[in-house]
């Protein structure tokens, strides 16, 4: 169960509000960490666990939206649930477009809050999983030699060994050896599997 270890980071300048939120989230068994400011959250060393951010939009200094921007800039995909004491439609649109899971007006209904938080954590779990597979593929691609990468790209394009040998001006048996190494290194049991991994990694292989 990912939720067992999931952590909700509550960022609100209002101590009463953030304490109340923490109390509610804890009551359903979630791990909660509270921060009085966006800066405080950013400066905090986060554990590598799934989780989400419950963020007040309006705060002195760095606002909720500012924090969202900062996280995006640093490719941090921690899902965000926004809260706002006053419903500001342009603000909520902006937040959702930038990837927020939800935008909740205060006072927040507990079920909606918990749903949004749960949804955000699920997304984070998924994101984390995707993220780990991709890094795996990327690591395997990294392990290929430049010639093997060339061969891989041509295989993925669907060329025959003979065509590859001709394109790379190498002997056909050499192509076969490279091809076997690629399959081994990428851990692919079929050409189709290999193609999927390449697509996932970004559709292209890094050039030598």
């Amino acid at each position, binding site marked *: 169960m990912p939720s067992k270890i999931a952590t909700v980071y509550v960022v609100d300048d209002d101590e009463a509000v953030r304490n*109340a939120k923490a109390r*509610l989230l804890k009551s359903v068994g979630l791990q909660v960490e509270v921060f009085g400011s966006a800066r405080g959250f950013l400066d905090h060393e986060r554990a590598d666990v799934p989780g989400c951010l419950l963020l007040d939009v309006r705060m002195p200094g760095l606002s909720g939206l500012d924090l969202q921007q900062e996280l995006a800039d640093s490719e941090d995909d921690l899902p965000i649930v926004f809260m706002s004491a006053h419903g500001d439609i342009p603000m909520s649109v902006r937040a959702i477009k930038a990837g927020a899971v939800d935008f909740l007006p205060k*006072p927040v209904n507990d079920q909606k809050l918990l749903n949004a938080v749960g949804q955000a954590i699920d997304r984070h779990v998924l994101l984390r999983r995707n993220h780990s597979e991709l890094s795996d593929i990327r690591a395997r691609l990294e392990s290929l030699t430049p010639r093997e990468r060339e061969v891989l790209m041509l295989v993925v394009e669907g060329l025959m060994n003979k065509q590859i040998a001709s394109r790379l001006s190498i002997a056909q048996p050499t192509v076969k050896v490279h091809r076997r190494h690629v399959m081994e290194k990428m851990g692919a049991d079929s050409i189709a599997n290999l193609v999927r991994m390449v697509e996932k990694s970004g559709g292209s292989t890094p050039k030598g």
Partner: protein
Amino acid sequence: MSEVKLRGWASPFRFFAAASASLTLCLSLPSLGVAQSVGTANVKNVVVVYSYESVLPANVIVDRMLRENMRVAAECQIEIYSEYLDTARFSSAGHLDRSMAHLKEKYSDRSVDLLIAGGIPALDFLLSRRDSLFPDSPLMYCCIDSKRVEADKSLANLPGVQMRVDPVSTLELAKALQPDANRLFVITGDSNRDHSWKMQAQDRLSAYQREFQIEYLSGLPLEELLQRVRQIPAGAIVLFLLYMQDGDGHHLFSPEVLQQVAERSAAPVYGVYNTYHGNGIVGGNFATFEDLGKETAELGLQILNGTDPIEASAFKQAPVHNYLDWRQMQRWGLDQSRLPSGSVVDFRQLSAWERYPGRIVAAITIIVFQTAMIFVLVLQIRQRRIAEQSRLASQHIVQRQRDELARVNRVTTVGELSTSIAHEVNQPLDAIVTNAQAAMRLLRQSPTDTEEVAAALHDIANEGNRAAGILNRVRSLARKEQPISEPLELNEGVRDVLRLAAPDAQNRGVVIHQEFDDALPSIMGDQIEIQQVILNLLMNAAQAMQDVHPESRQITVRTTHDARFVQLTVEDGGVGLADDQLRRIFEPFYTTRPGGIGMGLSISQSIIQSHGGEIWATQNADRGATFHVRLPIASSDALNLTNV
């Protein structure tokens, strides 16, 4: 010296003035003078022989008139000698003989150019003794009753001035004044002359028998007379003729008797002699002794100038008039308009105005002036008071308008802050709701974490109070009460305002720094108004930084104090103010911000000024502007007073 019998009613003493005042004038011509040892040729000697004593008013008047008129008019020097036979008091024949001898002796050394006889006794005396006394001196008379002259042939050729004494004309005068009178009382005394007068009156008044019931009070003792006159019915006419002697034989002085009679009489008294005039009669028809004296002087001068005595004997009469006593007419309420024309009213009591016109005019002028001054002063005071009242009223109106404007400004500001306020209220509400929901979830769990539930409930209560506090602050800003003056802690006021304004500032990305002087003394003032000023300054500062770089959006709120003042500064990093703006920023409706109405700072200024403080703005050295508010420190007296 031949004996002279005093003619007529020789009265023992005293004469009554006018009535019997017949004067004997002795006149001697110089050419006939016995001796001329004294005086010169152009000196003419006139001897006037009066019947009675020298102090008799009639004698005094006539003597004065003679001296004044003869001396003035004559071309030569005229010496007047007055002699008084005093026959009323010395009535014996021997007295007259002695008088004659005395006169003869006295004037033996000079000529007598004219003899004047004053009154009947004197005339009789001179006529009977003239030959032996002043045989050659021309004789004339003065003040002799015309009836006597008519009756006595011996007087026909004698020059003189007659006196007409007539009860009828006086009665006519009385009738004119009292047309309704039907009773007549005639008063005479008990002397011979009194009786003669009575008979004469009975004769003359017989014509009035039908008109009047006539009663003669004649020869009564004085006491009885006075008693009788009291009982005279009102509306009757009293005619006082003569009273030389009363029924008890006392010699009396008619004018004096008249005075007593008039005092007691129940009806108006009239008299026939000039000397009664002013002594109690309403009036009478007679000649004055002044006029008699004057006429006598004229006639005497003619004789001295050589006019034939016979020719001159065409006797003269002094003018006779109705003479009236104004005081008596007033006393009896007699109508002056009934008087026959030509009547003379004397003794009119001058009114104060007639006596002292100058002083009265002066007094009235002063009074009028003073009154005018008082009026002007009163008017000025009144105007001043009205002006004061209207000034107070207008001050009151201005104050009310200012208060109302300030309130509108607060409400407007609160309106501008409504988003921020909503946020501010929503925070505790959110905390409450969330805590409540958490508590419910906790209660459903087993085992229940009661400590956590209690903590949630505790927070709910706190947050409820916090929300109420915010609403109170908002409501107080919109309240309508009169500003009051109470001790205030400026820092507290600033903190309160920051709670309201901070969310808005945050929304604008503004950071507010607070630098409070912890030892700040109290001030006196109205909490709401002071907070309004702070709020206006904060809103202005926040708005001034709308378009500047987010890094620059900083406000510093600072409090400081010195010996006399506490000071609040609000420093922003905004666009700042040009010199022109610094000058005009506190003017009403002056605004640098689109959509602003330009009242905030103007109202803030009026509030601070009403607190005895000052507000001004300066341009910061780097960027933005600073607003300064200086308020006087509350005196210890004021603090003690409000603490009581």
